[in-house]
């Protein structure tokens, strides 16, 4: 143990402790990545490196990590390593480790040693309590390294010793799910490696506040990277399933992309496509934006610039937030019960547009209000002092300055509604079709009010998300329904991403106009 009275301001020697700790963190990262791959079944227990099973490899690594971590803690305590630990790792750490001890001991006692309910509860509580008290009372170096190190050693030994094998299966009573060894092993590996890395990162900086900061950075960083990895994994998964069928018959010169340019013709010799559904989705989004966004922005202007901040505004705010969290199927039901009977009596593209417009309204209202509130009052004062009326000020100063924020709301909202299925199911429901809705070409002028008619708007039209649902789940007769569905999902993803791209570029344009 060493508590130096004069801590060095500059520490540049890379000692044994630092090397050991970075080894722990590096090994931990490798174990963590592979165990995540194991959880997603990309690698399995059959994967072997140099004739040795992958999990055995990882388990040996975990064992080494555990030993090194314990060594780091004890070394710091007995004064081998020059560190600056605090008096205690803190109550939160103690509580979490106590909980971890409870879970590990409980699982070991009930699953391996075969204790009854009372028995494993007693063992788990004992171990958990001892861990909690021990960690809470121990100095920081011991308290934050011993529990993770020991856990890593135990898990490593279980796997290496052949006790926790892929053949292991646990069926918790009351659950119909089974935890098999091929899931349990990577799960145990990932959790223990993560906690041990945390301890290693603390040890690397010699504990204390720098140690805690580095350890926290490590966890937060891994978290961020893991989320991005999940996202990318998801996209790649859909792409890998969908690209094949979506690009069937694709050629660049002459340009042919049957899946995108064909309708669904029910003829075996033609490649079926989703063109009508793409057009339907685009019309839906355009219609929803035209209905929802102007009302939302106008309401936001009124609530922020004109209305007295009081009960009325508060009530509107609560109503808006409520609307935003209303499930989409409720919107659909409203459209089905209220709009459909009033707009031609059958499901139609127009009702779909209106319902999605209502869904877009609350989010756009909330974000537009925030954007308008964020415009500095100096602009309004300057404009008023020049003798410019309030409405002119809003039009030519406030709204342009709030535009990027307003567009952010529109982008988010469009992302939500473009993939919405439930309301479409109720108010628009168009099946597999060969022809796209011809909205522009269907406008007709009539001699009687309302002087304009549009058949395409009043007929049901297909949309990508609904078509996806229909082909995969509802068993609408289609050959290769699953492949067709994956390809549809891929195209839906592309369409939504292109809406995002349009939104982001227009936001960039407005932002540049404000700043350059």
């Amino acid at each position: 143990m060493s508590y130096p009275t004069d801590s060095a301001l500059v520490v540049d020697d890379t000692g044994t402790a630092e090397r050991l700790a970075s080894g722990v963190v590096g090994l931990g990262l490798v174990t963590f990545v592979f165990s995540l791959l194991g959880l997603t079944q990309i690698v399995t227990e059959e994967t072997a490196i140099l004739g040795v099973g992958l999990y055995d490899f990882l388990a040996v690594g975990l064992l080494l990590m555990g030993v090194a971590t314990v060594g780091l803690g004890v070394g710091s305590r007995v004064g081998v390593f020059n560190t600056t630990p605090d008096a205690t790792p803190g109550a939160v750490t103690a509580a979490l480790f106590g909980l971890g001890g409870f879970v590990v001991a409980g699982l070991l006692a009930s699953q391996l040693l075969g204790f009854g309910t009372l028995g494993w509860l007693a063992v788990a509580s004992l171990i958990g309590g001892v861990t909690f008290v021990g960690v809470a009372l121990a100095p920081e170096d011991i308290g934050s390294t011993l529990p993770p190190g020991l856990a890593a050693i135990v898990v490593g030994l279980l796997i290496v010793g052949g006790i926790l094998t892929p053949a292991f299966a646990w069926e918790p009573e009351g659950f119909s799910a089974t935890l098999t060894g091929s899931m349990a092993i990577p799960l145990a590996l990932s959790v223990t490696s993560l906690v041990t890395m945390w301890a290693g990162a603390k040890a690397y900086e010699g504990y204390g506040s720098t140690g805690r900061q580095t350890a926290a950075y490590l966890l937060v960083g891994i978290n961020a990277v893991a989320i991005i990895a999940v996202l990318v994994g998801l996209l790649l998964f859909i792409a890998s399933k969908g690209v094949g069928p979506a690009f069937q018959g694709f050629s660049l010169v002459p340009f042919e992309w049957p899946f995108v340019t064909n309708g669904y013709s029910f003829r075996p010799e033609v490649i079926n496509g989703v063109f009508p559904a793409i057009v339907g989705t685009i019309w839906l989004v355009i219609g929803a934006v035209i209905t929802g966004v102007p009302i939302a922005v106008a309401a936001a202007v009124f609530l922020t610039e004109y209305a007295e901040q009081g009960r009325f505004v508060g009530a509107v705010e609560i109503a808006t937030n409520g609307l935003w969290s209303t499930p989409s199927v409720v919107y659909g039901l409203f459209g089905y019960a209220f709009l459909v009977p009033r707009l031609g009596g059958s499901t139609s593209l127009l009702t779909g547009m209106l319902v999605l417009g209502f869904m877009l309204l609350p989010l756009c209202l909330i974000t537009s209000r925030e954007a308008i509130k964020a415009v500095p009052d100096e602009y309004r004062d300057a404009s008023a002092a020049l003798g410019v009326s309030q409405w002119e000020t809003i039009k030519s100063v406030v709204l342009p300055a709030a535009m990027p924020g307003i567009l952010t709301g529109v982008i988010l909202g469009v992302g939500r509604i473009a993939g919405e299925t439930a309301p479409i199911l109720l108010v628009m429901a168009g099946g597999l079709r060969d022809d796209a809705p011809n909205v522009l070409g269907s406008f007709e002028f009539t001699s009687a009010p309302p002087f304009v008619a549009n058949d395409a708007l009043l007929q049901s039209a297909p949309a990508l998300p609904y078509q996806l649902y229909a082909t995969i789940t509802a068993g609408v007769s289609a050959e290769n329904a699953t492949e067709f569905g994956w390809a549809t999902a891929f195209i839906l993803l592309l369409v939504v991403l292109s809406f995002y791209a349009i939104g982001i570029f227009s936001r960039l344009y407005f932002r540049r106009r404000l700043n350059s």
Partner: protein
Amino acid sequence: MTETTTQDTDRSETAGASSDSQTRSQPGAGTESTPETWTDYEFEGEPKMAVSGLDVYYGDDQALDDISIEIPEKSVTALIGPSGCGKSTFLRCLNRMNDRIRGANVDGTVTFEGKNIYQEALDLVELRKRVGMVFQAPNPFPKSIRDNVAYGPRKHGKVRTDFLAKLTGRDDSEREDEIVERSLKQAALWDEVKDRLDDNALGLSGGQQQRLCIARCLAVDPEVILMDEPASALDPIATAKIEDLIEDLAEDYTVVIVTHNMQQAARISDQTAVFLTGGELVEYGDTDQVFEDPQSQRVEDYITGKFG
């Protein structure tokens, strides 16, 4: 008193007060009862703006207490005093910017060329066109330099450069260019920005931004320019430029300036009004006289730094 709103002000009283002789003194209701105030100031000509019996409340707090003052035309009037004494509030009464502050209650009369500006029939847009304002912190719009200067004339319909105007051949682009050039020259900014009129105004330095704000104010041809500590956020060189500019402006415009900086007031102003804590106007007179021979002991203490 707090119940009285601006609409209740008796206008006939003002009309009587401002139809006096050429050279006039401002007795001020409190002169005899409270001998600590010296606000008589005699000058030639009609006052451009006259204030009498002005009380301002923010909720229950009184910010200004019975202020009476007359501001001569084409001169620089400095308002000085410690923080929180109400000089900015007073300034904002002169173009009714206080209307924009919730809970502000103005009582009394303020006349502009003999007309009460706190009457219901007043056209706020017209008033603020003729009584312009420059704020403490530079506040250009996030637009190009040209758009900033031309903002007022465009919004007032004095120049039309939009698509429709171009289509119908009533394009005022040349006139707009003239206004922009004249205003920027008056604000001593033309030489620095003439090659980049279409750049964003936020790219200018703080001093340039403030002169741009002055140019923006000048572009609508005001008669009175109110300045609320226009140089307090600027460095000494930019401040010197603004001060030179104010002295030049006083040849054509009536300038009323609030400042914390007593040397600045002494350098640039023709007459000085000293506000002291509690929202009272304690002394008003010729700048040299106020600074060299103040009649009030409190003002002398304030100016010599014995009391902040």
